[in-house]
C-alpha cells in the first residue's frame, strides 16, 4: 500500500502512542519491503517469518525512538529488519539461497519503477559504486543484500578470504571518500 513519507511518519507517531490502527498502517505500507530484505538474507523459511514478526513487535515497542530529523521512516525500519536478519543469519540459521537463485539476484538496476523512485542519495551512492571494479561492486552488493560473510563470498568467488577482506575494506573506504561524508 503506497503511502507518503509524511503519512508513514504520522503512522509511526501514532504507533508510539499505542494506536493499533496506525501500527497496521505502518505494517501495510512497509511489510512487503521488510520481508523482502529479511528473505534475501535468511531465505524463505519459518525463521524469516519469525524474524518479520519480531521486527514488527520491536517497531511497536520502539516507535517512540524514531527521529524524523535523523532518518527517513523506511530507512529506520529497514535498518531494524536488516540488523535482526543479520543477527539471525550469524546464529547459524541455515539459508536456502542456493535453492532459491532468484533471491540471489541483486535488485535490478534497470527497473524503470525503481529508477523513477530512486532518491538523490541512491543516485549518488550508485555513481560511487560504479567507480569500483565490477567484481568489487558485486562483493559489496552481495554482502549488503544477502548478508554474506567474507568467507561465504570467498567460497562463492573462489578467492582467498583475506583477499575478499582487503577488497571489501578498500571498496568501502573508496565509497566513503566518493560520498564525501
Amino acid at each position, binding site marked *: 500500500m503506497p503511502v507518503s513519507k509524511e503519512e508513514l511518519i504520522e503512522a509511526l507517531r501514532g504507533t508510539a502512542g499505542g494506536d493499533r490502527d496506525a501500527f*497496521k498502517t505502518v505494517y501495510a505500507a512497509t511489510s*512487503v519491503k521488510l520481508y523482502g530484505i529479511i528473505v534475501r538474507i535468511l531465505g524463505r523459511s519459518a525463521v524469516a517469518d519469525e524474524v518479520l514478526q519480531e521486527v514488527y513487535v520491536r517497531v*511497536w*515497542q520502539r516507535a517512540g525512538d524514531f527521529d524524523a530529523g535523523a532518518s527517513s521512516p523506511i530507512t529506520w525500519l529497514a535498518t531494524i529488519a536488516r540488523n535482526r536478519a543479520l543477527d539471525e543469519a550469524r*546464529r547459524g540459521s541455515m539459508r536456502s539461497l542456493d535453492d532459491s537463485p532468484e533471491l540471489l539476484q541483486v535488485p535490478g538496476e534497470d527497473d524503470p519503477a525503481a529508477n523513477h523512485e530512486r532518491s538523490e542519495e541512491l543516485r549518488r551512492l550508485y555513481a560511487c559504486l560504479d567507480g569500483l571494479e565490477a567484481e568489487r561492486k558485486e562483493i559489496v552488493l552481495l554482502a*549488503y543484500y544477502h548478508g554474506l560473510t567474507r568467507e561465504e563470498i570467498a567460497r562463492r568467488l573462489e578467492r582467498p578470504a583475506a583477499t575478499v577482506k582487503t577488497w571489501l575494506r578498500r571498496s568501502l573506504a573508496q565509497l566513503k571518500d566518493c560520498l564525501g561524508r
Partner: protein
Amino acid sequence: MTEDEDIDALAAEYVLGSLDAAERGEVAARRGKEPRLAAAIAAWERRLSPLSEREPGIEPPAHALDAILARISGPGSAGRPAADVIPLRRSAGRRWAAYAAGAGAVCVALAIIWFLLAPSDRPARQVARMDCSRLYKGFWEGFDRDRYAAISPEQLAGVSRMALRAYDACQAGDEQDARMLFERLRGTKA
C-alpha cells in the same frame, strides 16, 4: 592502519553485513560502550541505507499480521500498557467466564462465549482472541533463548509451525488439541 581507520572499517563491515558471528557479536557488544564506534555505525547506516530503496519486496505470509497483533496484545508488551483487554459487560458472560476458569478450560470457554455473544457484543470476541494470543505469546516467551539458538532451522521451522497450529486450534475452540500441541512443543529437545 590507525585506530580510527580500524574502527571505521569495522563499523562499515558491520553495517554491510559481512562480519562473521564472532566479529559481529563483538561489535554489537562494543557499540553500546564506545561512542566513536556507535557514531561510525550510524554514519555507515546513513551511507548504505539508500540501497534498501532498491528492495522490490516480497509479500509476507498472510498469517503474519495476525500473529504480530497477537504478540503485541499482551499486557506490558507495548511502551504503553495495552488498553484493549476489554472486560465482559454482560452478566451471562461473567458467569460463563467464571465457570470456564473454574473448569480450567480457558480457551474453549472463551470461544464459547465468543460464539454466544459475538453477534451482539464485539468486546467478547476480543476477549476470546486475547487468551489464545496469551497462550501463544506465553509459549514463545517461555521458550528458552539458548535452546532456540541451539536447535536446527528445520526443527525451529517445525516448532514455529506447530505453535501456529496450536494457536489456530485454540482460536477454533479446540482446547484439548491446543494444549496438547503446546505441551508437546515445550518438550521439544534440542
